């Protein structure tokens, strides 16, 4: 197992590309084969994965229902007004 990686900067880019589902299947296969032999790549992969997961799971602040309803109501009132006014003005 390698404890240092000579092309870590490129590997980190590739890891992100894979986790973002933007890598080709060849790129992914090459990386996965290499990962087992390279400790920094393994750690890098785990880190990027946990970061992505943390952002997805912990940073969603759902729109409060009351506010959501308020936006919806206001919006629909405006939309109705617009759709009545536009034909009148034209």
């Amino acid at each position, binding site marked *: 197992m390698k404890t240092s990686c000579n092309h870590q900067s490129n590997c980190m880019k590739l890891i992100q590309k894979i986790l973002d589902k933007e890598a080709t299947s060849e790129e992914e296969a090459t990386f996965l084969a290499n990962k087992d032999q390279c400790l920094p790549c393994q750690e890098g992969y785990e880190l990027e994965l*946990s*970061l992505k997961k943390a*952002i*997805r799971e912990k940073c969603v602040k759902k729109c409060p229902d009351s506010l959501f309803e308020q936006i919806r109501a206001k919006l629909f009132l405006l939309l109705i007004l617009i759709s009545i006014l536009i034909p009148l003005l034209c």
Partner: protein
Amino acid sequence: MINKQHMEVQAEEKVIPPEKSRKIFEKEFMPHLDAMYNFALRLTNDEDDANDLVQDSCLKAYRFIGSFEPGTYAKAWLFRILKNNFINDYRKKSRGPSKVEFEWVEQSYAGEDDAEPAFQADLRAESVNEMMGDEITAAIQALPVDFRMIIILCDLEEFSYEEMAKILNIPIGTVRSRLHRARAVLKEKLANYAKKRGYGSDTLSDELELI
């Protein structure tokens, strides 16, 4: 010639009857209201501003509904409108120091790929897993607006690089490098925080201020 011009104008405007507009709006746009609100909240950092931004963007979307092509990804189209709205407001409001920050960020991408992060943050997956949502949110909130935006679009909303390029109106190569750099800065902030917490006697809010 006159005929051709006439046809082009018609194609651009594509007037849609109000009844149909409302239907498209309800069916295609309303399901994304939650995601829009979350994006607006992350951008503005303020509930009232987020509320205004979502409403303005929805009205704009309704006004330009003729240029929305049914069957295409409505969420990306809406996010693009929201982002443009935000940037316009942001430019108008920020006559203070934050304007410098934004322009600096934009400029630093002009060259591209050489914007390689020089450091590899000393951060472990375990530390990230232990962190609370508030800590991660605060670190994201502390990023320059361009970095914040791209991380949210990618990691939270799971847009593809191509969709992000369209939303942000930048080349796909810039999406890649900006995202890479944004993550490097985010990791550095989190690493600093994890390190401080290791020694930690300060309160959480004190530490977050230092990030």
